[in-house]
């Protein structure tokens, strides 16, 4: 197993509250890794630590063995750590075409080109359209993101991340809030992610978790609680206890 992303004793304290308690997590190359846990367990905090939105109060983060603990978000993205957001973070005034075009041009390091008209690189446009097709966004290519149906916005959320060519993709509840009839589109998109991309999925919906993941980590109160294959986790008495709300059993 080749480890792509690794945390060593990663900790985050917010004045008295321990949001991440010495988490040591390894994400394998090409993994389909799920991170589950009750509300407030610190799942999103962990994503924020991994992406550099938050700075840890202790511990280290390694990408391919290189320490990236103190790199700012945008540099980590360039190295291939890309995320999606639980609550849509999109450019409401831009179209999907512009949004993906922006992500692709930034990835190529052409974001500082100020004397070139947007859309004047044909290979870039081709790549952008390919991504939009892959995520079924061609029919709304020209609409402002703000007016897109919610399901389309969720797709765009993932498409933007893919446009950054992630090596490790952190999916924060990709199907959150999506109506039942639009759900399959999101799930199909998640299932169709390229094999060489390692994925860390945060999800509450156990059907999605168990159909997707080949490895599951359970986070409780900011600490890694149990980790294993889906079978191991499903059969773990302590996990059942947590999910039945009987945390006292094991404590």
């Amino acid at each position, binding site marked *: 197993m080749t480890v792509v992303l690794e945390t060593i004793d990663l900790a985050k304290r917010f004045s008295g509250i321990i949001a991440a308690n010495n988490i040591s997590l390894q994400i394998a190359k090409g993994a389909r890794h799920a991170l589950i846990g009750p509300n407030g367990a610190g799942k999103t905090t962990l994503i924020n630590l991994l*992406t550099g*939105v938050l700075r840890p109060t202790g511990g280290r983060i390694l990408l391919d063995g290189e320490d990236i603990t103190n790199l*700012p*978000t*945008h*540099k980590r*993205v*360039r190295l291939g750590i*890309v*995320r999606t*957001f639980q609550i849509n*973070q*999109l*450019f*409401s*005034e*831009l*179209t999907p*075409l*512009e*949004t993906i*075009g*922006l*992500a692709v*041009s*930034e*990835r190529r390091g*052409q*974001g*500082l*080109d*100020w*004397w*070139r*008209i*947007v*859309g*004047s690189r*044909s290979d870039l*446009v*081709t790549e*952008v*359209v*390919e991504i939009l*097709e892959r995520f079924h966004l*061609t*029919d709304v*290519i*020209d609409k402002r993101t703000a007016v897109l149906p919610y399901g389309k916005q969720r797709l765009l959320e993932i498409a*933007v*991340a893919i*446009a*950054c060519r992630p090596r490790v993709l952190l999916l924060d509840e990709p199907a959150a809030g999506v109506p039942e009839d639009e759900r399959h589109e999101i799930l199909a998109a998640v299932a169709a992610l390229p094999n060489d991309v390692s994925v860390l999925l945060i999800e509450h919906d156990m059907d999605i978790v168990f159909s997707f993941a080949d490895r599951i980590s359970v986070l409780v109160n900011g600490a890694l609680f149990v980790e294993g294959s889906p079978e191991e986790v499903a059969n773990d008495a302590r996990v059942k206890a947590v999910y039945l709300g009987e945390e006292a059993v094991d404590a």
Partner: protein
Amino acid sequence: MTPPPSTIRAATEWLSARARWHPLEIVFWLAAFAAIYLLPDSHLILTEIAWLGLFALSLDLILGYAGIISLGHAAFFGFGAYTAALLAKHEIINEPVLALLVAGFAAMALGFVTSFLVLRGSDLTRLMVTLGVALLLRELANRYGWLTGGADGLQGVIIKPVLGMFRFDMFGHTGYIYCLTVLFFLFLIARRLVNSPFGLSLMSVKGNPLRSSAIGISVDARLVAIYTVAAGYAGIAGALLAQTTAFASLEVFSFDRSADLLLVLIIGGAGYLYGGLIGAIIFKFMQDYLSVLTPQYWPFWIGLVLVVIVLVGRDRITSWTAPFRRVAARLNWQALARRVAASSTERH
């Protein structure tokens, strides 16, 4: 699974749609240049409009495109004005265009240094910080009177002919042609810039800095870059004032100037480049008209106009002209939308 060429073509046109020249834009600039021949008696006020328009364009670059609000943009305007005036007075650079460039670069340097102050914080913080910087410069200019002339202003400035050929005259003929040419040239650069990948990234930073950094954009670096460019524009606007009036005084740094500038941009609407220019035209003619009508109380009417504008565009003062612009955009883009639709049906 390469997409069909028709879709690619449509997408290309869509992406570059913002950059296409609208007929109204061409009319606007033709009218501005026609005024050289058609309105010879108004060249003095038109000169003022030209440099004010450039100054407002500068504010639009940071406010309309990058979301940085400033109540101290006069800092760069004043810095450029004094630079140009001092260069001429001490005969360091006698040719106005060259002096203009130097003044612009000097203001850019100041913009770069102070840009780090506006990176963090809310709009309110930025208002206070920019205001503070302008006040600071004003007091420095006041304190070092041996250099700046202090409260009396910088006297005895003589501006040599532009390019060694065109002498400034008291009717503003040369001044207007000079200012308009500079404005047009810098407008073209700004227009190119905002329609580039860099410009798109600015809009993304303004719209959602969190996501911008999540796609690999260094938000701070982009803000520093545009703030520096805008400071250069403001400096050149100030230099134009100094050169066309052969004078610079503490008033170039004044709070009123920064506040009026915000007003000018709000009147015209931010975020489409023409707002500052249109705002400058309306503001100057309104000021001119009202100050004749009621010499003492004309600011009252300007205040009233401001209140009305803000109430009309209730949710966002920066874009009260957005509905009009959207209509114009739709007219322009409907044909493209149909083409995109056609290309996607032809595939299925």
